[in-house]
């Protein structure tokens, strides 16, 4: 195995962004509606669901990875899809890791609204689609927090993506799995280069979101 070169670094970085970006978009697409629903409705069993979501926030990613790997393993329930060691399996694991974070932060944002907020908007005769848009606008800081938390969770995660992706060169190798691999091989310079990119990405993305969040608060 050779030292890491520029094109390989770029390829790994772009793949990481693509996989994490897909996971984030899908986690938000699923988590935001569920969070709004859980945050704005009262029904029997709601507390149990919230308890599950909160437990999910603390679930070890490596356990999530194990479950997803089992799911897509050749003899697993979804083995016929032949997705073991694929980017799709990695995305599935990352969605499951990010989903509880997104749901919990959206629930908290919705719950922090005035209890009469929804009624007031209804009382103004605003149609349902506009009401949803206004709600998203209202909880946008909570949404940003959810994006930052979810992104942090999936971008820095290594166990689950290793189990589900297998670190295949040119296919499923991402920054975290590559760092792990180069460290094991004793190629610390390559590992540090990848680590610097990963940290840089985290700082840029988190900084950007924080800047947006700060701008909203002003």
């Amino acid at each position, binding site marked *: 195995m050779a030292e890491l070169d520029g094109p390989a670094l770029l390829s790994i970085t772009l793949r990481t962004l693509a996989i994490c970006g897909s996971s984030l978009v899908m986690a938000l697409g699923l988590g935001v509606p569920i969070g709004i629903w859980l945050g704005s409705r009262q029904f029997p069993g709601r507390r149990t669901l919230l308890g599950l979501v909160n437990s999910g926030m603390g679930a070890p990613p490596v356990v999530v990875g194990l479950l997803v790997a089992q799911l897509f393993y050749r003899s697993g329930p979804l083995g016929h899809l032949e997705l073991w060691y694929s980017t799709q399996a990695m995305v599935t694991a990352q969605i499951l890791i990010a989903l509880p974070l997104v749901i919990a932060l959206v629930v908290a944002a919705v719950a922090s609204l*005035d209890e*009469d*907020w929804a*009624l*007031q*908007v*209804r*009382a*103004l*005769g*605003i*149609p349902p689609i*506009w009401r949803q848009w*206004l709600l998203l*606008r*209202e909880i*946008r800081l909570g949404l940003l927090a959810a994006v930052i938390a979810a992104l942090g969770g999936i971008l820095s995660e290594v166990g689950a993506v290793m189990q589900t992706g297998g670190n295949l060169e040119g296919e499923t190798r991402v920054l975290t799995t590559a760092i792990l691999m180069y460290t094991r091989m004793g190629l610390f310079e390559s590992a540090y280069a990848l680590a610097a990119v990963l940290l840089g990405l985290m700082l840029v993305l988190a900084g950007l979101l924080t800047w947006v969040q700060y701008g909203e608060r002003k």
Partner: protein
Amino acid sequence: MSAVLVARDLRMIRRSVASCFELKISHLEMRSSEVLAVLGSNGAGKSTLLRAFAGLEEPTAGEIVRQGQGPVTMVFQRPIALAGSVLHNVSIALRAQGLPSPEIRRRSNEALEHFGISKLAARPATALSGGELRRLALARAFALEPAVLLLDEPFDDLDAGGQETLSRDLRQAVAQTGVAVGVVTHDLRRAVLVSDRIAVLIDGQLRQVGERNAVLNHPADLKVARLVGMSNLIPAEFDAQGLGTIDALHSIPTGQPGTPGPGWIGIRPEHLKVDVGRGEGTAIGEGELVEFSSDGLLATLTIAWAGQTLRTHLVAGRGLARDLRTGDRVSLALRLEDVHVLRDSPQGEGELLPMA
């Protein structure tokens, strides 16, 4: 003034783990160009009624009938600012309705102007003070040009000056637009400040509804009397001519003949006069001033008379209010037309019926 919203045989049951509350309204209507104040203590069902009128809560039984055109809108007890500027808040519902931009601009500007917050149009709504937010909520509602506007405790978090200004603005808006306004409040003074008619709600039951002065001066029963500030309630035995005897030495002529029997005499504090030197009213004897308090504007006199405790008000810092001291003897008088008679109901237990 025509009815624009009518509640008929309305029944709303709200259950919680700890309690069950029922609101019952046989008939209540809101009329155009009129302010109806719904008066009641906390938990009487005022807000539930208002939400039912606004279509935000479904009645368990009965119906609320809309008559005429125009939206029904509501402003909540804690005014809610939507994220965005003041102008965004006022115009968002109009934009959602798909109105043309010039129309949105006209209505928004008029509403902001009317409630004196034009200068705040660009400011984030969440940065407004309580009073400004209250005005924004009203401007936002008025921009819809509603047929019915429902206000839940609209004077909360406003000082006396703010309440007066808001009341004036509201009256002007009602006169200009013909909107029917429903105001719920637990505060009698605020109800009197804005209303044309008053509906009294006690424990979920509509006990009386009528013109403001009629309700204030002729409450339907003891509970209503207490709620509308008729604090001087004196038990009496009435004869056929309407003379109410309190004890061997004290009586009050009511000028209201009826069936002899027990009942109560109700006198509003402002109708009980002290010192009959100028010969006004009918003298009912002397009492002793047992307590004197003043808030700087109004002095409240508590007077012991015929074993009863009566209250009356004077303008603070003037005339008698300046000279009187606790323990002084004062002459009491009243006008016959200010005396309200409440007869015992067949059920007794303090439930009273107004004299026919």
